């Protein structure tokens, strides 16, 4: 395979990929008198359009992605992102819509936002939504701020947020930024929240419980109502991390479980593409009592006119510029509209079917720490394979040789050597079977030929990369000076 150089290595004076029309006003150098200007942006690229196109086309082909194949990253809901939604979101009218345009001239945009809020509220059983958070983590932060604001209003912001030990890393981090101490709640042998542990920890110092449902093991917190009762009894709130909504959409609603605040990840359940790490969107839904605290602006309607309400004295304030990731929201609205209720329900049903098919097919080959029924994902571990010196990372890297993307390994922390598998509803049986076949083969190899796992991957664009030295001796950019010296 040809190695693709850095663009800087292709750069040379005199090449260009861009032309600007003639300046049609007089050019006056003196404008910049007394202002420090730059003559040259050292090392900045100069290449031709062909070179740009080839550079990015070639680089693109070194990526795995949903459009190429199975991508069972647990907790990430790597479902197919419908292309029509990309087209709808990139219409020239939207692309040229200025966020500070007079409100009467962008009524269509406001209607789209409002409609999305309404449909998300209906889907989750919450009373009101803000679409502003840019991603799940910002949603969590906003959600915690709402809770804090409510407590503050009652005179005491409280100190602690309870978080199960199975939670995603953003949960404690968000709680912390919001000024709370994090206290971990143990999981029980079913993998769900230990209600006794919760009861003991649930004091009047606790602002909220952050719960993920189904949790990161894919297990439904079946005592959720009891849990909510315990928390509410002490004046706390239930915050639900809705990252796993793909298991529940059209089946049941967090609002009906007495959840007070929830964030959704539109780039998971609602199909917007992950783009190699964003942009996403992390709308936050609340029950009526928390609505006054929502970040500004809030979209309101008066007769046929929508407007942006910023006069909200109890609001936590502004959490980002403008109104959220509008283009992402457009895609998710298109997705909801394309499905309707039956279609929405079907995604959960099939996501759970696919996941359970994988679980069933692999349960003899890989260790499943928790036996509870699971919904949209399941978490195996490398326990059987560790006998042969094989860790989850070796299994993961070997999967690459089969043209498949590995599962999530970095969490949940309660499963050592985790292999967290979420197939989503858009996969075909053929793709599931290819994955199952590869995993079985790997389990066999682990016993019979562990070296092949240790040295994997073998046929990828690069082989196993040295992450340790990358962190120890960070090279974080191409260096013009070093390169120049090298060349001379």
């Amino acid at each position: 395979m040809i190695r693709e150089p850095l663009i800087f290595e292709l750069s040379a004076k005199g090449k260009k990929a861009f032309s600007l029309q003639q300046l049609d006003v007089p050019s006056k150098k003196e404008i910049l008198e007394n202002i420090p200007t730059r003559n040259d942006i050292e090392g900045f690229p100069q290449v031709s359009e062909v070179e740009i196109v080839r550079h990015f086309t070639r680089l693109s082909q070194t990526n795995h992605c949903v459009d190429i194949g199975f991508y069972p990253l647990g907790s990430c809901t790597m479902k197919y992102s419908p292309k029509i939604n990309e087209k709808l979101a990139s219409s020239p009218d939207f692309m040229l819509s200025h966020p500070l345009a007079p409100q009467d001239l962008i009524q269509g945009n406001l209607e789209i936002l409002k409609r999305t809020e309404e449909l998300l509220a209906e889907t989750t059983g919450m009373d009101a939504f803000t679409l502003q958070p840019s991603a799940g983590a910002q949603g969590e932060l906003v959600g915690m701020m709402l809770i804090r604001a409510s407590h503050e209003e009652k005179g005491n912001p409280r100190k602690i947020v309870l978080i199960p030990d199975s939670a995603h890393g953003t949960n404690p981090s968000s709680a912390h930024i919001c000024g709370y101490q994090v206290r971990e709640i143990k999981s029980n042998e079913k993998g769900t929240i230990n209600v006794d542990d919760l009861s003991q920890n649930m004091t009047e110092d606790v602002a909220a419980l952050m719960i993920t449902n189904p949790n990161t093991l894919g297990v439904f917190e079946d005592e959720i109502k009891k849990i909510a009762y315990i928390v509410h009894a002490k004046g706390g709130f239930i915050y639900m991390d809705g990252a796993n909504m793909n298991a529940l959409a059209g089946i049941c609603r967090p609002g009906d479980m007495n959840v007070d605040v929830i964030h959704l990840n539109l780039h998971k359940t609602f199909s917007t593409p992950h783009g190699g790490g964003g942009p996403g969107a992390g709308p936050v839904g609340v029950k009526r009592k928390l609505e006054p605290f929502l970040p500004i602006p809030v979209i309101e309607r008066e007769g046929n006119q929508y407007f942006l309400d910023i006069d909200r004295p109890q609001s936590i304030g502004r959490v980002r510029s403008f109104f959220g990731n509008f283009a992402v929201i457009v895609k998710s609205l298109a997705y909801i509209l394309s499905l309707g209720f039956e279609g929405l329900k079907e995604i959960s049903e099939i996501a759970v079917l696919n996941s359970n098919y994988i679980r069933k097919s692999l349960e003899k080959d890989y260790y499943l720490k928790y036996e509870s029924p699971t919904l949209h994902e399941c978490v195996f571990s490398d326990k059987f394979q560790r006998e042969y010196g094989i860790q989850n990372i070796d299994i993961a890297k070997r999967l690459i040789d089969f043209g498949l993307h590995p599962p999530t390994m970095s969490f949940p922390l309660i499963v050592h050597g985790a292999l967290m598998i979420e197939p989503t509803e858009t996969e075909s049986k053929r793709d599931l079977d290819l994955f199952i076949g590869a995993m079985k083969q790997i389990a066999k190899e682990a016993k019979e030929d562990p070296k092949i796992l240790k040295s994997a991957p073998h046929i990828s664009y690069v082989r196993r990369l040295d992450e340790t030295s990358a962190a120890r001796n960070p090279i974080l950019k191409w260096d013009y000076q070093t390169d120049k010296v090298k060349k001379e």
Partner: protein
Amino acid sequence: MSYISLSDKDKKEMMKAIGISSLEELFSSIPEELKLKNALRLPQAHTEQELMCYFGKARSKNKYSEYLSFIGGGAYNHYIPFIVDYLSSRGEFLTPYTPYQPELSQGTLQIIFEYQTVISQLTGMDISNASLYDGASGAAEAVLMAYRIKGKPKVLMAKTLHPQYKEVIKTYVRNVPIETEEIDYSSAGRIDFENLSQKIDEETSAVVFQSPNFIGVIENIKKISTLSHKHQALSVVVVAEPISLGILEAPGKLGADIVTGEAQSFGIPLNFGGPYLGFMACSRGFLRQLPGRIAGQTTDVEGRKGFVLTLSTREQHIRRERATSNICTNQAWCALRATIFLETIGKEGLKEVAWHNIQKANYALEKLCYVKGVKKKFTGTVFNEFVLQFSREWTEVENFLRKKNIIAALGLEKYYPELKNCALFCITEVHKKEDIDTLVEAIDESLR
């Protein structure tokens, strides 16, 4: 529409393998009482054509595109070469996750590495992260970062920092022991240096200011940075219009410690406000405090160059509540667009675009100042935005221009009550001379 890939036969076979006879059984772990009894009140499923129709109707309620517009204020209309759209829409860029498996993500990772390089080059800083949500959260993260580094309770913000960024900073620091104070602007439209000198002290962690600032004026980064450093405070430069970096000296060369801001101008459509692209660059010494993803270069077992996400001990998935930030999903695809944009317009192109912006804006400023009843509000040098004060109620002028299909400027009174009948104009390379002349004439008429 349905995006399921199972045939009827597949479903049956899979249910059999699992040992269930209905899909409902899959949800037996959910208490019955929690399950939906009735269908959700969602619209009927739409076909592609119906979706086109729905959004077509919604769009037709937007009238903004029928106007000749000169608004900026943190969101800029620049020409985006078509290959930015074309290349960024490839499935291989749109549909991967964050590159957790580097061996399957070299495209994304190398591009982040190139992005970090061009951002470092433009800002003149040692290192850049892989992106933040937007300019506002960039500013807020910079404040938190400065506090982590300096540990002192005071943060000074220029009054001319983007009003929304100021608000977001305030929201973010609400639950952190940081006090923010604002620094006035001078009649030049720059930071009032006296006011700054008075307020800065040894308790100050950072001075946060924007250049070109919200009212269009280019700040004296060097002077402010020097003063900040004298008080062991960080100089945090916010850039909301980074096209300016094509011509203005890099903040890093003028003493900035952290440069953050909004890179929407780099090939990201206006999109009614999002997704945009927060960027952040800093000196090498602050690396361990930088929020967000970072890509680094390494080698594979055969010694070939490759890229990985690195320094993740700063991040939430490792550090949990002690992470530098809670950010996880960021704006990678927007950073990809910015990378394609910058590599396409290139060294000469960026300079030229910056030059067009400054020349056109100053041409407009000059022309408008000849109009009777119009006054240039600030004396400082402007890049592509400027403030004018009118002899007539701004809202009346605004309405008059609206009837001529012109959205001329952003009224400033709602942001700065003292700036009565002042408005912020933005001119970029997409405006032709004739557009500017049309504006000038219309304003002239509105004041007669």
